[in-house]
């Protein structure tokens, strides 16, 4: 019995430890575009950010909180890092680890923003943070080239649910 408790404890520790830390996959725009066109009843919240962007970093906890505040609802967060791919191991992975980000993080490996930005949204001028919310089934889509407050983000998400 005692050894069983120990085993449980060990298992719990393993779960909580960085073993569960988020992986960061590096993707090209074609992969992202495929994901941005999903037509189902999930509401996707896609935030474009970078470790060097102060307002983005400040805003990240809001997206992280969606995981708990919208639990049970079909809301999925994707954090798209626009850091240079050369900074993946040096900056992005340590950042994600340190902040314990639970949302999915990908790094978009494209050197010319001009090649994809219009395909995300013609209205996107190029500033980050930039956020895209959409629901394929409801045929609803909105973009925001600014930082959210908690209340603003909740209000916007609620329009999709």
């Amino acid at each position, binding site marked *: 019995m005692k050894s069983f408790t120990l085993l449980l404890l060990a298992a719990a520790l393993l779960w909580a430890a960085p073993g569960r830390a988020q992986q960061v996959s590096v993707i090209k725009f074609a992969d992202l575009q495929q994901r941005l066109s999903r037509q189902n009843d999930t509401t996707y919240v896609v935030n474009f950010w970078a470790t060097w962007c102060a307002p983005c970093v400040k805003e990240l906890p809001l997206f992280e909180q969606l995981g708990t505040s919208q639990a049970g609802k079909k809301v999925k967060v994707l954090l798209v890092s626009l850091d240079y791919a050369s900074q993946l191991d040096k900056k992005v992975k340590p950042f994600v680890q340190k902040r314990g980000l639970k949302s999915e993080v990908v790094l978009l490996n494209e*050197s*010319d*923003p*001009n090649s994809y*930005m219009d395909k995300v949204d013609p209205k996107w*001028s*190029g500033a*980050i943070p930039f956020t895209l919310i959409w629901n394929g089934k409801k045929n609803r889509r909105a973009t925001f*080239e600014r*930082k959210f407050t908690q209340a603003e983000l909740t209000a916007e998400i609620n329009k999709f649910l």
Partner: protein
Amino acid sequence: MKKLLSFFPALLALALLTGFVADPTGYQVGDKVADFKLKNVDGKMVSLADDKAVKGYIVVFTCNTCPYAKAYESRIIELHQKYAPKGYPVVAINPNDAATVPGDSFAEMKARASSKKYPFPYLQDETQQVARTYGATRTPHLYVVTRQGSDFVVSYIGAIDDNSEDAKLVKTKYVEQAMTDLLAGKPAATNSTKAIGCTIKWKKS
């Protein structure tokens, strides 16, 4: 007449709301730009109309603190060195609210301009009105304006080139392409591009 006069303030208010204040898009290519008067790091006020000899300007919204602006800093200096002798000097404008970003204060701007030996004016857009009028959203964000009589008209808006990380890996130099066209007396074939940058740090209202 009395009726008309009383109507006028309402019209004016409407014009202010729709025409000047609430235009989120800013200038488009082909638009005439309004001149400005902004303080340079040397303490002097600078306007586009100051230099009667220029053919135009390369107006860059940039700052001290954004990694993208820093990545492009030497390329902005090179643009000035290449195009000022051809009649298109660079004018750099820092629109960031210094209360939000202390690193973009006037004193820090002076320090940056002097340590990097900026060969062009580096102006503080303290009220942020110029950036709003242009429709600048990020740093760096670049506008080429060309003289037409006593006016300046927007000829190019956007990015400097297609690789911010490494100048050596650039395939397309957007501004240089546009400048080649403009100096040949033609409109820029590619007159608008996009690039990632740092959000302009607007004053909190």
